[in-house]
């Protein structure tokens, strides 16, 4: 059962020589063998590893979303077009992971090209939610979140454009941290929307997310939009009191959220108990974020995916699935000259207004908190006939994505009947991952919702 260890526990136990790396790998591989046929979490599995006792991650098995290019290993982004694509270079983030002693145990399923919030658009079949297999894991990093929830790895990496780390983390009852845009390098990640794509950790605990972020963050000369902002030691934000912190609660009075809000609101009391000030605040209607995100994302997708054809990647543009076709074509349309008021320019203006709105709120509050997703994990098949499925599921996170601000989703409620979780989305200003980690860690350690801490 060593596959159930958190990253921190595994590192500590290896340091104390209480267990061996071989035993951890054996248990993780056996968890994969027993569950992967049913859950469809991994598209590729690697059984080879090296013990690296002197490196911080020791050779531990880490799951990686299949849109990170891994040199010499097929990287599909869950698309048929890239079915046989063997990258000749390594993404910066996976290189950093390897340099720190992390070993990739497998490449995880996702929505094809990261287009979606369910894994139902994967051209290799959907992933099922390990907490309840009648439900979806969310997406696009659904495979990575499911790998963590099912203990089929010790920790994992995902990427977020608008919700793709946090929403699957919420639906699978795990932790997902979206770093500030530019904190982690996009080099070697199959691009979706270049102005918001942010790779980040999906883990069992907040502490594990802080540890992984320490190793994958940092300026990258190969990615011009990566920032030279200093990388702090994020584990220093753990176990810190949150008294005197000012917390703003947003999106509490949205139509349709009444039922889940009743379950969510009582969870916020712990912050008051821990000495923080908790106030309800008013943010701009997230429906504007949906519109902005739809235009910006489709436009960037049409441009980014223009490079994919059978000249360089063996399979042609006829292999794009329905969702990719829709997004590429809609983006082609929103970037075309047929409009009187150009939707792309208008969207980028409203994007500015949304960012200013958050900046104003952050003058009053240290962090902003909302639900991660408007509800529990949806049932398998839910995306059918819903042209805007992802946007609606991700709307509470879209402003923080469009603005580049960091956020984390942590489990904050479990429904006993369905075994499904709600996620709490904690957001902070640019470069303040330390604050989201501090608040998330305080919540996690003072409540019983994290299934790994409960079993301590």
């Amino acid at each position, binding site marked *: 059962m060593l596959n159930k260890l958190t990253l921190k526990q595994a590192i500590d136990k290896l340091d104390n020589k209480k267990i061996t790396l071989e035993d951890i790998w054996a248990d993780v591989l056996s968890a994969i063998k027993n569950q992967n046929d049913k859950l469809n979490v991994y598209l590729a599995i690697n059984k080879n590893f090296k013990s690296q006792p002197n490196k911080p991650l020791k050779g531990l098995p880490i799951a990686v979303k299949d849109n990170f290019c891994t040199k010499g290993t097929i990287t599909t982004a869950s698309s048929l077009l890239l079915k*046989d*694509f*063997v990258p*000749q*270079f390594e993404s910066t983030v996976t290189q950093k992971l390897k340099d720190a002693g992390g070993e990739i145990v497998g490449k995880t399923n996702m929505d094809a090209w990261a287009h979606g919030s369910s894994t139902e658009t994967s051209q290799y079949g959907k992933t099922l939610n390990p907490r309840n297999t009648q439900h979806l894991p969310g997406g696009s990093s659904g495979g990575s979140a499911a790998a963590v929830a099912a203990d089929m790895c010790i920790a994992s990496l995902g990427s977020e454009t608008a919700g793709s780390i946090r929403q699957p983390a919420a639906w699978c009852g795990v932790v997902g941290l979206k770093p500030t*845009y*530019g904190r982690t390098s996009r080099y070697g990640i199959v691009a979706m929307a270049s102005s918001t794509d942010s790779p980040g950790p999906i883990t069992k605990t907040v502490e594990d997310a802080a540890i992984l972020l320490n190793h994958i963050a940092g300026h990258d*000369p*190969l990615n*011009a*939009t990566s920032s030279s902002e200093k990388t702090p030691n994020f584990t220093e934000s753990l176990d810190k009191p949150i008294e005197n912190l000012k917390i703003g609660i947003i999106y509490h009075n949205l139509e349709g959220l009444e039922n889940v809000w009743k379950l969510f609101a009582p969870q916020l009391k712990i912050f008051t108990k821990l000495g923080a000030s908790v106030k309800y605040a008013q943010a701009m209607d997230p*429906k*504007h974020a*949906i*519109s*902005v995100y*739809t*235009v910006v994302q489709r436009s960037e997708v*049409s441009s980014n995916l*223009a490079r994919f*054809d*059978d*000249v*360089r*990647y*063996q*399979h042609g*543009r*006829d292999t794009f699935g*329905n969702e990719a*076709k*829709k997004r*590429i*074509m*809609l983006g*082609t*349309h*929103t970037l*075309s000259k*047929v*409009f*009187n*008021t150009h*939707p792309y*320019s*208008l*969207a*980028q*203006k*409203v*994007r*500015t*207004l949304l*960012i200013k709105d958050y900046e104003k709120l952050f003058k009053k509050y240290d962090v902003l908190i909302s639900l991660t997703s408007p509800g529990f994990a949806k049932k398998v098949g839910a995306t059918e006939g819903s*042209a*805007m499925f992802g946007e609606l599921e991700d709307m509470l996170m879209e402003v923080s994505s*469009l*603005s*580049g601000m960091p956020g984390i989703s942590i489990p904050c409620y479990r429904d006993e009947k369905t075994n499904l979780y709600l996620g709490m989305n904690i957001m902070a200003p*640019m470069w303040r991952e330390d604050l989201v980690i501090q608040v998330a860690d305080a919540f996690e350690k003072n409540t019983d919702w994290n299934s790994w801490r409960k079993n301590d």
Partner: protein
Amino acid sequence: MKQKIDKQLVRHIAELAQIPITAKEEESLANDFAATLKVVDQLQKVDAKGVKLTYQVTGLKNITREDEVNKKNMFTQKQALINASHTYDGFFVVKRVIDAK
């Protein structure tokens, strides 16, 4: 930005985006586009006059590097061609695009 989405427009966009689609897809895509653009149309209601556009959020400007070959980050010819569907004599083979129609 109102514009009628019909099958003809969908066909035109598909051509621009080089996405092969079937007649059946034209119809379903037209419906999906109409639904999505309705959401996008809500932007018209926001007063954004005089607001600056946000293209990027880090505030970084003019990132350049020395114009030098980075040998560590370079493909061999073989590597560059390894994922190609057709090669000839160390070149990519591409379909004729001039007078393609």
